[in-house]
């Protein structure tokens, strides 16, 4: 009503016509958005359904039918039959160690580049930024032979070093803007009070940047958790494999048991889905911040 009157006051017919067209327009827009949402979610819902079915149900029932008697034993079977628990723990600790190292080392570099005065800081920054464009694959063969020489093949350290190095540029890139925006006065006051650079960095700067640290941390975690080619190339023994490669090999043994495959996949993606449920705002923000590289 209110908008109708306002429309008439401003010389009406144009306003009301755009209002009616607007409504139809909105319906169309929502249909587009919902169609995309269905496309994005549907495969995952289907995965959940077939992870709870046995082969007979998968192949004989309509694909979208709910599992009549959910076969939770699919989950039990794959969890206890393979090394999924080992892969899972490896993924957790390797992801955490690499993420913490990247964020701390990246913060130190960014601090030295943005706040401290030295020749060559631009050159060093350039080295990190150019590294962002280098494809991982082009380094794979030399990395393999280098790690082989120093006996780090089939050792988790090869993964951690690679993850830290390759995620460092994007981490620094996200941190940069934040560090440039930090007020100088805080540091000046701290120096006058006799603070050393180390104290200043660890007691003042790091806490001040905690929100952007969380953002970079999340980006790093997602990358590290899902990394495939390094694990697949460097790690051969089951005790060091992470979930992505473990799942891949494990499914190879169950090529025809769709329920088991579904359960394995669900186990591998569940931690991310749960994290997303609780941290979705941070994750969205983290990915948005991380994407503006280039």
């Amino acid at each position, binding site marked *: 009503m209110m908008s109708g009157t306002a429309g008439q006051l401003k010389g009406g017919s144009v306003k009301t016509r755009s209002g009616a067209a607007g409504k139809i327009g*909105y319906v169309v*827009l929502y249909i587009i*958005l919902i169609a*995309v*949402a269905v*496309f*994005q979610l549907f*495969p*995952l819902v*289907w995965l959940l359904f077939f992870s709870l079915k046995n082969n007979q149900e998968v192949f004989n029932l309509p*694909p979208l039918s709910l599992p009549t008697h959910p076969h939770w034993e699919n989950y039990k079977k794959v969890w206890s039959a393979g090394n999924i628990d080992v892969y899972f723990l490896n993924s957790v600790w390797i992801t955490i160690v690499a993420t913490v190292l990247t964020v701390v080392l990246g913060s*130190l*570099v960014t601090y*030295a580049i943005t706040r*401290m*005065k*030295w020749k060559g800081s631009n050159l*060093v920054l350039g*080295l*990190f930024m150019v*590294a962002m*464009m*280098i*494809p*991982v*694959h*082009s*380094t*794979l*063969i*030399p990395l*393999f*032979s280098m790690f082989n020489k120093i006996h780090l093949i089939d050792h988790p350290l090869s993964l951690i070093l*690679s993850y830290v190095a*390759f995620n460092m540029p994007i981490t620094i890139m996200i941190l940069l803007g934040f560090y440039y925006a930090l007020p100088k006065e805080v540091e000046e006051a701290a*120096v006058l009070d006799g603070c*050393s*650079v180390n104290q200043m960095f660890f007691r003042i700067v790091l806490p001040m940047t905690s929100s952007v640290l969380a953002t970079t941390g999340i980006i790093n975690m*997602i990358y590290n958790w*899902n990394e*495939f*080619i390094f694990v697949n*190339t460097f790690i051969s023994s089951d005790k060091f494999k992470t*979930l*992505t*490669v473990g*799942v*891949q090999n494990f*499914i190879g043994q169950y090529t025809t048991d*769709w329920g088991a*495959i579904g359960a394995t*996949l669900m186990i591998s*993606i569940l931690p*991310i889905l749960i994290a997303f449920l609780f941290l979705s705002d941070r*994750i*969205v923000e983290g990915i948005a911040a991380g*994407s*503006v*590289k*280039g």
Partner: protein
Amino acid sequence: MDKVMSNKKIIALYVLPSLLLILAIVYIPIVLTGYYGLNEWNGIGSMKFIGFDNYSALIKDHLFWSSAGHSLLLAVFSALSLIVYLVIAMVLSAKLKGANLFRKIYLIPMLLSSVAIAQLWLKILHPTNGILNSILESLGVDNPPAWLAEPNLVLFALFIPILWQYAGFYILIYYAALKNIPTSLEEAAKIDGATSLQIAYKIKLPLAMEVIKVTIVLAVVGSLKYFDLIYVMTDGGPNGSSEVMASYMYHQAFKSYDFGYGSAIGFFLLIICLVATWVIRKLTASKDTIQYS
């Protein structure tokens, strides 16, 4: 102040660990890749220097060129799909209720590992039991294709999961860019009688151009080095019809133990990625000046 902030020891302490790491893990390997490419080497025994033989063999290798062609095709698909993502982001940013929720739902596939995505889509595209062909059959399609087994279809079929995986990522970037445009501009245009389409085309699009450029680089370079999903889903098959540059390199080095030739491919991949980045930047930069002049 200046004295404290230019303490050389502290600077070295803060910078050197990361700098040495990136030199060792990124830069030295890049140089070595180029050098290994000049050798005949099975990865274990001693290297034999053969000059540019690997590189000249590469230029004559039709399997390499077809894999490069596949990579290029994927890059073109990816670049084209950006238009769709941009439209969806425009729709999302039109002050719709629930935009935030949609944006989050779209992003979910992006968080999953390529291996999980590949395995899931192997099932979806399964010729007899997959959900895609079940749907097609129920719609009356008699003999739906065996998507990943058809040399002419396999790249298109592989592109569906790629679309699925990255849709949310690009929509998110575009959405963020569009939201950054001051609303006052849009309101002023509305008062002047501009339609939503005009606003989208004449105001939002040019202002989002910087971000669009970045996404073109991301999509093209990302596609040129595509690996995980293809490696798991088809391993380059059937008969090399979905082989891409990175998978060809992997096969030559780690399956055929021809590390010298693999390195030559790896070095070529690096050059192509750097050149692609540079070319796209140049192209999009010149477009930009035309638009503003």
